[in-house]
């Protein structure tokens, strides 16, 4: 068990190491302010959603509906905008609706006891469908520049895009939540041993429910960022993103069985995937190769800790 833990630590160190290798290998072009700005934008939504999803996975569940919530919030944003509502009202409404989507997932998982994989495959279809119902095949693209600039310009005086600044703030908040609060401890305990957590007086259902709600809200936030960044509200925004986010979380060393993982690892994982993509595209490496590299990284990510642990113990026990 100790070896396993150390293996995990090593994996996170390895991620950071790989990140540095990629950054150095990318050379000056990579490290230019402009490129870092683009990199920040590119990882934007995936990075945002990866934060709450990390907590969900640590608690032993999964949420595959995040990309659909993103799409739904984008569609809702467009619909309300077309209806003439002010953006200042629309944005909070969208986040609340996202939270409600998460609440539906959470209620089905905790109060009915359904497996989250099955539930969120269902809501993946449902939320995307609702997005289509709202906006159909039209796109809403006339959001005012005073807002869309938040998706396309850096924070004045830096190369940090606004979404990245938002991500940094949320990353800090989630890191504190997961690693320094009773709630975070409860999340780990639930993921590692749900029964023991319940026997310790932890409100398992409520904790998981809250996690799903937070995930929904952040996915909606990511939908807003996405919409403003491309100044295009469409029902199919972010289709298929869920697997990329899950991949990023797992690459960050979070165990799919729950109970293990760090937010730092996930952030390193997200950045590594983004930086690698960025460098490879800059070097004109084909998209085919990119896809393969993503998959191979994931395989290494899951195999490495287990191989390290086995070599370290050198024993074969069930």
């Amino acid at each position, binding site marked *: 068990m100790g070896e396993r833990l150390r293996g995990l630590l090593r994996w996170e160190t390895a991620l950071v190491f790989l990140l540095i290798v990629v950054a150095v290998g990318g050379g000056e072009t990579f490290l230019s302010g402009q490129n870092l700005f683009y990199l920040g934008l590119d990882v934007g939504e995936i990075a945002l959603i990866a934060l709450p999803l990390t907590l969900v996975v640590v608690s032993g569940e999964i949420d595959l509906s995040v990309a659909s919530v993103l799409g739904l919030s984008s569609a809702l944003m467009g619909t309300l905008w077309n209806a003439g509502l002010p953006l200042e009202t629309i944005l909070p409404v969208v986040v609340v609706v996202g939270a409600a989507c998460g609440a539906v997932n959470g209620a089905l998982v905790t109060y009915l006891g359904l497996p989250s994989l*099955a539930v969120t495959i269902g809501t993946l279809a*449902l*939320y*995307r469908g609702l997005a289509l119902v709202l906006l159909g095949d039209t796109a809403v693209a006339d959001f005012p520049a005073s807002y869309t600039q938040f998706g396309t310009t850096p924070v004045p005086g830096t190369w940090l895009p606004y979404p990245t600044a938002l991500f940094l703030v949320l990353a800090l908040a989630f890191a504190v939540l997961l690693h320094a609060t009773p709630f975070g401890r409860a999340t780990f305990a639930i993921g590692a041993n749900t029964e023991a957590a319940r026997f310790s007086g932890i409100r398992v259902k409520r904790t998981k429910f809250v996690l799903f709600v937070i995930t929904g809200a952040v996915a909606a936030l990511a939908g807003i960022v996405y919409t403003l960044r491309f100044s295009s509200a469409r029902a199919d925004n972010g289709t298929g993103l869920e*697997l990329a986010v899950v991949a990023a979380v797992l690459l960050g060393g979070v165990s799919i069985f729950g109970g293990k993982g760090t937010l730092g690892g996930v952030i390193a994982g997200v950045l590594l995937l983004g930086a690698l993509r960025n460098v490879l595209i800059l070097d004109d490496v084909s998209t*085919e190769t990119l896809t393969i590299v993503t998959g191979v*990284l994931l395989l290494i990510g899951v195999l490495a800790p287990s191989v390290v642990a086995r070599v370290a113990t050198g024993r074969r026990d069930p």
Partner: protein
Amino acid sequence: MTGLVARVGRVRELGIALVLLLVVAATALANPRFVEAQNVRDLLLNASIIALLAVGQTVVVITWNVDLSVGSVLGLSAFLTAELAAANHGVPVVVALLAGALVGLGCGVLNGAIVSLGKVPSLVVTLGTLYVFRGLDYLVAQGNQVNAGDLPPELLGFGGGRVLGVPNLVLITLLAVLVAAYYLRSYRSGRELYAIGSNPGAAVLAGIPVGRRIFGAFAVSGAVAGLAGALWTTRYGTVDAAAGTGLELQVVAAVVVGGVAIFGGSGTVVGAALGALLLSTISSSLAVMGVPAFWQQAITGALLLAAITVDRIVSLRLAAALRRGTARGGHDG
């Protein structure tokens, strides 16, 4: 008690069949053409590839694993089969299908080896190979497409062909369902798959070669996905590198609706195949009923949720009945 258990087991599939009948009947009332021969054929055809994939997936899921790479395996095999057939027009249909299955088998073997030798969660592994196989597919395709015109007519004829009015693809899927159902019910290794999913630790103690069985399950799922890829080619004729993208979630949905427990140990391929048929029939029915296109996906999602919720409630009832039964039956009296 046994009666109850057996009944509930059977009711699972009966229930799906019943819902299916209801959907068909309701649609037929609104539009009688829904039950004409051509349409029934189309309904079955539309479900056949997903149902086939669901058969392979069920074999994996009952061992408490999952194979997310099936969509990519299908894509890779579809393209390779198409290229093979396009390059060698004389190739017999059977050889083309076998080639597809072989490509899939290769992918499945890789999945199985990583999962069983590495002792790592299959969800992560197959998510990784989902990307790897799709990337290979892109590499092979290089942005090109194989057109129906490039393929030998016999191959396309097979995809559109029928025997006694039943489309060939439906027959193949039916055959796969029957073989798999019989194997899972009547062979030791088939039962061992259920045992592994039901209690992995006890399976080891019972002397079941757990690693080998899981490896086998992935190999089967891969080969089936490969065969499905070849069939895809015969049916659609036009194949590019994107074939089957995103199919994995549909397949998992069909399996879940079909009453296969996502945490292993129970469920049948018949249920899974019916699940696939139900889902595709619902979407056809929504289209025929004139439900606006944009509503269809939302309704499908809602029905999926309803299905798993009902299933859960039924199994909770069953568990409660068993608990009371034990209490009444008293052990030592």
